[in-house]
């Protein structure tokens, strides 16, 4: 397998993995918009997290930003797989930002709210996987491409 083929396969895997994150974030966005997170009941920890003040930024559910981020990752990975050079840079920056934000939200859950939401943990796992895949991408200008 050539390096460029391996790189393209990784971009495709990143795109597919980001769809899983997009599904998760989109579901949470709809839950927030229908007011289902603005009550107490059901899974205690999920509501403690999703109903907290940390779940919104200027009134917009954090999940909506997550949906946008995952969609961006999917888009950049798709374009990168088709050879658009700059898409890889944007992909790296977006995944990097998501990684840092994920660390922040894990800190909030662990040390501020003392509660974990399984949907948020799933998203964190997806983000860490994406970060690993992006790190594993071979450099773009590789002389061994055949």
């Amino acid at each position: 397998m050539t390096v460029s083929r391996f790189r393209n396969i990784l971009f495709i895997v990143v795109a597919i993995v980001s769809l899983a994150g997009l599904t998760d974030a989109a579901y949470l966005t709809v839950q927030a918009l229908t007011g289902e997170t603005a009550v107490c009941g059901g899974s205690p920890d999920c509501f403690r997290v999703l109903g907290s003040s940390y779940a919104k930024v200027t009134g917009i559910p954090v999940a909506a930003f997550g949906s946008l981020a995952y969609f961006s990752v999917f888009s950049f990975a798709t374009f990168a797989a088709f050879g658009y050079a700059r898409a890889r840079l944007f992909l790296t920056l977006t995944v990097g930002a998501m990684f840092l934000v994920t660390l922040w939200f894990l800190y909030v859950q662990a040390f501020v709210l003392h509660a974990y939401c399984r949907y948020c943990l799933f998203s964190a796992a997806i983000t860490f996987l994406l970060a690993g895949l992006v790190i594993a991408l071979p450099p773009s200008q590789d002389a061994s491409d055949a």
Partner: protein
Amino acid sequence: MKRYLPFIIVAVVAIATLGSGAMLYRARPPHRLTVPKDKSVSAKGDAESMHVRGDPKAPVTLEEFGDFQCPPCGSIAGFLDELVKEYDPHLRIVFRNLPLSMHEHARDAALAAEAAGLQGRFWDMHDVLYREQATWSKAANARELFESYAGMIGLNLDQFKKDMEGEKARARVDSDQERANSLGVKITPTVFINDYQMGPTDKTPEGLRAAISAALKEKS
């Protein structure tokens, strides 16, 4: 064609995501509960067991199942009081205790409110508990705080402590929880206006005003 393929793929995923989101949003009208006629708050014999704010003979009843440690309940508590004043004498509010097991101090808070109610000061304790929710929710020994609130609102402290442990307060809280179970209420805040449950997005000041006005129109 290959040049446009990534744009097509991204556009398809965008449309699929937005479409699925819209379908999910529309497909989730919450299951709205209604209170059967025989369990309606205007049924005879219920008056003495209710905590009522506003004119007891008001044509519109807003029945709230609340948990004192529930943050969304704390949020609506403030404007429910304003609504009673705004719609006086046409609106009354009935509060039912529904302490959820996920909230460590919720049952004690409910008992504190009922104990205050036995000295005729339920609503004063209700207001203090919601106002100070952020403080006592995280306290290791919330009971001490409840006793300080009791002192603050001028209750007989010894009687308050005794009543918190007593059968009457417990029976009141249990009775409200049984009512919640019988109606299928599992989350807080759950709000009924004239026996019809308000949806998740209706529990805003504007949503409640619209529902109260509609209920008033129906009664006139």
